[in-house]
């Protein structure tokens, strides 16, 4: 079987970087289980109903809030677009009223965590990422170094950053540069 090569394969090398002592930042990466875009038009929610049901979701959700189930995580990225991480093949739901697009190879997840994770984010994006403003379960679509990314607050100090595959290495290096002063641990496995 051909193996999927992670865009971060050269970067996910475990080690401690920056000043010695407790690391403020931990970085690792994760291959997505599968990533799909569901897009519709005026009757989007109806058109998406059966796909949502298969994922254990009841609605298309609201902007800036992720919906997670056992088998999927869904982000409402635009009025008529849903981005879904799931191992299920959603291609079968493609229809005249619901455009399904496989993006499984188009994004990688960089996992950012640690006590200084929010400080690091505040160096990269001009958005209030204080715990009160960016809560668990919330997500942001924004730009890091002029590249569009999606940042999901998974836990209080754990964030997943979905980055375009072809920018993953460059984006990783930007994170690494900014993270060094905090002390940094890289984990090859999430």
């Amino acid at each position, binding site marked *: *079987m*051909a*193996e*999927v*090569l*992670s*865009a971060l*394969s*050269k970067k996910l090398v475990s080690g401690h970087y*920056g*000043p010695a002592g407790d690391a403020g930042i931990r970085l690792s990466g994760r*291959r997505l289980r599968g990533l799909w*875009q569901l*897009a519709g*038009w005026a009757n989007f929610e109806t058109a998406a109903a059966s796909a949502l049901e298969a994922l254990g979701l009841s609605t298309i959700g609201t902007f800036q809030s992720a919906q997670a189930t056992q088998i999927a995580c869904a982000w409402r990225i635009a009025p*008529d*677009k849903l981005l879904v991480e799931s191992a299920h093949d959603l291609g079968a739901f*493609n229809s*005249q009223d619901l*455009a399904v*697009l*496989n*993006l*499984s*190879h*188009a*994004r990688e997840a960089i996992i950012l965590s640690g006590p200084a994770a929010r*400080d690091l984010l*505040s*160096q990269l*994006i*001009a*958005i*209030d990422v*204080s715990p009160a*403003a960016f809560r668990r379960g919330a997500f942001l679509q924004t730009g890091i*170094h*002029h*590249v569009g990314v999606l940042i999901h607050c998974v836990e209080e100090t754990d964030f997943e950053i979905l980055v*375009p*595959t*072809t*920018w993953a*290495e*460059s*984006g990783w*290096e*930007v994170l690494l*540069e*900014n993270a*060094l*002063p905090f*002390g940094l641990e890289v984990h090859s496995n999430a």
Partner: protein
Amino acid sequence: MRRLNAGGRIDRTKPLSVTFEGRALPAYQGDTLASAMLAGSVSLAGRSFKYHRPRGVFSAGVEEPGALVHLREGDRHEPNVRATTTEAFDGLVSTAQNAWPSLTADIGAMNNILSPVLSAGFYYKTFIGPFRNSTRFWMMCEAFIRKAAGMGRATTLEDPDRYEKRNAFCDVLVIGGGAAGLSAALAAGRAGAQVILVEQDFELGGAILSDPVGAPGDAWLSRVKEELASLPNVRILLRTTAFGAYDGGTYGLVERVSDHLKTPQSGQIRQRYWLVHAGRAVLATGALERPLVFAGNDRPGVMLAGAVRTYLNRFAVLAGQNVLLATNNDTAYSTAAELSRAGAFVTLADLRADPPDDALAIAKDAGVTVLTGHGVLKAIGRKRVTSAVITPVDERGRAAGSTRKVPADLIAMSGGWSPVVHLWSQLYRKPQYDAHAVCFVPCQESEHHLQPAGTAFAAATLDEVIAQGFNRGIEAARASGSTGEAGDPPPPFEAGPFWQKNQSPVWATRKADGSLAGKAFVDFQHDVQLSDIDQAHLEGYVSVEHLKRYTTTGMATDQGKLSNVNALARMAELRGLSIPDVGTTTFRPPYTPVSIGAIVGHEHGRHFRPTRLSPIHHWHMDNGARMTEAGAWMRPWFYPQADEDLQAAYIREAAHVRQNVGMIDVSTLGKIAVQGPDAAEFLNRVYVNGWKTLAIGRLRYGAMLREDGFVMDDGATARLGEWDYFMSTTTANAAKVLAFSEHLLQTAWKDLKVHVTSVTDQWAAIALAGPSSRALLNSVTDADLSREALPNNHVTRAHIGDVAVRVHRMSYSGELAYEIYIPAGYGQHVWETLHAAGQAHNLKPYGTEAMGALRIEKGHVAGPEIEGRTTLKDLGLEGLASSKKPFVGSVLRKRPVLTDPDRPTLIGLEIEGDGGAKPGSLLFQAKAEAKGHGEGWVSSTTYSPALGKNIALAFLKNGKARLGETVRVVNFVGGETLSARVVSHHFFDPEGERQNG
């Protein structure tokens, strides 16, 4: 000048090693470089900008125009550093700048003698003057002027330090940590708002720090600091300057994290650039003292009176023994008394004939001699003042009586105070002139996000300062929804002089005839004399904004801090107007200089911009490819064998493709999924050709125009399903085409049910080209690739090994060719599979340079041809356009200027001789003079291995009709002329037999 034995806010237990010009200075923790210089009796700190006049320490803060020095050595060397704001640290090394061969014997001081020709407008006049037609002469002058003018010398070594950017959000930003700012932060903090308090100094306190140690302010300060420290919602940033105020409550700050250390500690950054988004901000920036204008007011030993007081009380430095204080208001009286008590001999010359009794009493009690109705006419002494000419003056400040010379080693002057309105002015707000306070004051607009308080708002008493700060703090907190109890403001205390009282509007001392007794400066930093203002007026300048640019007053680091009011006052005088009628200039960021490093942060070197890598990138790197940048992408340029250079490699690679088979990574092509029931209609509208008939499993080349009728992009689009299309764009235009499509679909074409999504990252793509490509691909796939099953411009799904891929049969090289689309994570695997199987077919990878050669041989257009100024007809693609349907640009492409038959059109050139042509060369008729823009230009060039000659794509006026003609190809940049024969741009296999085979 000397250090006093006691007093000051310095830590005498911590002596520091500090040098200036190699000389050790007596410095302690808590000193600035300037206070150490004064304590070490350094009078001469540097030379001025234009006239190279000797200059000394003039102020005790950010307004410093004189003591600008070189700080540090080697790669950390920094020019134009204000000694007055440079915190002393152990190991500080500083030198003088703008002086050659030495500070004391500076040759550039000749400019001082030449000053009549270097006066206002010198640069303008020289640029547009009698030599305006002589570029060479002016370039020679410029080289001299650049060397003579300017200030410090920057290092050319790479900056070794790290910088950082950070965004912050708060309810209330308080700018300034003096009494007003502290009160504001306290109120807002108590109310529960998220507060950021910034102070440019390394200590909080502002003017309180200039009061003697143990004065009532100290207790007040420590109580307030203690309470602020107990509020977790208040963040205090010391050594941090708010240098810019921008729209939307955004402020730029620079925090000097480790500038007070010899070098940053391991892992520590040097400076941090904060972008703060504040609900409200309080402008508690205080006030700056203004100089008086008299001859020699720039001499070393002439200082601002408030600065003299700061050096005395904060740093325990007596800046002169024999002090002449010149004033037009009451504040200098307390200073005079304090200096006298510290042991100086003090004479006070007051321009006012009738100072108030309480002021006179203060002086008298301290043994200060007061000369009322007197002014300083001239300061004497070259590298240090030695004496001054003083004179009785009339109510306009003109000499009215006999002058006399008095000895003085320090002339301290007070022309009143100016609120620091810079950030407020940066927001395009005009301060108003307050004739009573004799200064420009910001206006209070209740809804504005920046609210002035304290002396920045001309608060004259400490009660007002504290009350204003406290109230602005509460209001700002309330505006953000904070409802906590703010309590009472901290009680006022008895403070030293910080604001003018009873100020006279007279600001200059002149001779009886109204002339000056020598050079008198308004802008010390830019060497602008009072006479320059006069000259500008004589030459007809009336607008203050023009005056500023013509004389350069208030430009550069001064930003009007010291110069503004005096320059405006003179302009008003000359025009017979009041100061408010003349108005004031607009200040712009930054308030004080900011290092570029802080603004750049990490975005330099390889992080100057984002880099995109193909999913197959590391194979190229591991296999010796030479890479090239294509926009944000890295692409294989060529794969050298042995010691091949570019030329040898691409010729070999291109020839190999035509004879055998080659593979190239084309993952960088823009790829857009076009989905929805109206996808065909959408394509029909954005492409010039028709799409309604394209069957599933077919692909088609298309070109699209901009709205103005010029060609925007081209590429192939495949139909993958009933409602699914796969559009490819050029690497360079992918983002533009996507954004343009989204715009049309979300604005004018909202009725179309179509979604467009970038899938560039989803797919790796490999082009396999050459006569053996089918055989090679057959050996690794299960798909039927026969001519009948997969003709040119068809698509099929296939497997390579166990990887599901899509094979598009299409050709860019003109050979039998396939593009294979692979889910990105399998890209490298499939590349390696093909590469291994390819060894039996003599497969070689090729790079972008060979790809360029192949497409030029075929006459395919690319970026150099689709460059935004060419039409379908120019490109020979007019046959593509459908006449049966409207499409983007279909009407405007028929504008007369775009259909002019004389427009240069695409042709091929066969270049004579061994050397190729350079892109950008201009085309001329064989016998015409090579002058002007010619009849066309060369766009792309290559050596053609298939033809065995140098060829080029070019645009030539009426080109289609000129095949066979010989033209001259002139490269004006390289100074080279070649001959070339005009031919069809389809150089190779014009019938396309090879690709359809």
